[in-house]
């Protein structure tokens, strides 16, 4: 192609390469594959959801980062994007949706309301979703511009790329989930109350 310098090619991971082969560590390859094919679950509740719709549309296109297929079922999603205010009535449902996702899973809190309750410091609003689920990236803004949401997704991609393959089985991670009251095994008939 004549315009070779207009296109940037992703650099190959560090490793040893030779004629017809390349040797690198497994987690680098898995990280590269995972980060460019994240399937998000858009958990859009309010105004940030409309900015997400703009991010998905053709002007700011989320699809070019590999997230073309939105999954509305938590069982088939990698990234839970919580966009908008989460009220206390919605807290248990958010936790249920998070539990249904299979490992490895990431969470991004988009907007001021998801990060910390936003301007709604009232009796009915959960002051940040990190009261019920562990969060990886927070995107501030009310609502954040689509470029900011894309910046958050790029940070998620960095996390995905550099994550160790053993992290989800480690004791630290299990303790983290236990501190939120999230069970790894699905138990029926257990009541959940959120303060």
């Amino acid at each position, binding site marked *: 192609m004549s315009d070779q310098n207009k296109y940037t090619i992703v650099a190959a991971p560090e490793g040893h390469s030779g004629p017809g082969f390349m040797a690198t560590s497994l987690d680098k390859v898995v990280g590269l594959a995972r980060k460019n094919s994240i399937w998000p679950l858009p958990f859009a509740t309010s105004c940030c959801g409309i900015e997400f719709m703009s991010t998905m549309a053709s002007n700011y296109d989320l699809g070019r980062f590999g997230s073309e297929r939105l999954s509305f079922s938590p069982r088939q999603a990698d990234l839970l994007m919580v966009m908008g205010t989460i009220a*206390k*009535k919605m807290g248990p449902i958010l936790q249920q949706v998070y539990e249904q996702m299979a490992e490895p899973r990431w969470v991004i809190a988009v907007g001021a309301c998801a990060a910390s309750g936003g301007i709604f*410091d*009232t*009796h*009915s609003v959960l*002051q940040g979703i990190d009261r019920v689920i562990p969060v990886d990236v927070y995107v501030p803004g009310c609502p954040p511009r689509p470029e900011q949401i894309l910046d958050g997704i790029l940070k998620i991609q960095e996390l995905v790329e550099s994550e160790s393959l053993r992290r989800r089985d480690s004791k630290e991670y299990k303790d983290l989930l236990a501190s939120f009251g999230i069970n790894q095994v699905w138990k029926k008939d257990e009541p959940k*109350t959120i*303060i």
Partner: protein
Amino acid sequence: MDNNYVLQKIRQYFDGFVLGYEELSGILTITVKPVVINDLVSYLKKEPEPGFSFLTDICGVHYPNQENELGVVYHLHNMKNNMRIRIKTFVTKEYPIVPTITWIYAAANWMERETYDFYGIEFEGHPNLKRILNVEYLDYYPMRKDYAMEDPTREDKDNRYFGR
């Protein structure tokens, strides 16, 4: 047909139940006893006169300094003549019962549930009076002036930084 005419008709039929009337920002506002709400609203709905056939809004108010603290405010609208009317009724905290108008206007169903949710005013005869917007296990009525806006159980926000 104007505000004075409607007021005159109401006083003619419901004298004794009307506790006060005034005109605020062009809308006739009458305060009545709770027991007559059904009859008054059915009378106002009749066509062609007075013809207030559209229920615009029902909401609650709390005046802590009055004897009858909790109030319900109804807004009705006559679309043909473009007239609005506001009906207020007040009850006490100990006995907050107001008859329902769900059987007159289907729109009153959720509006009365919202008023119950926020103020604790019980609508006698309502088909499904339970909380609509807040969580079910909330044990107080949040819009009353006795309660603060912030969550009473929060422990993470320091009031010094929030200007409280």
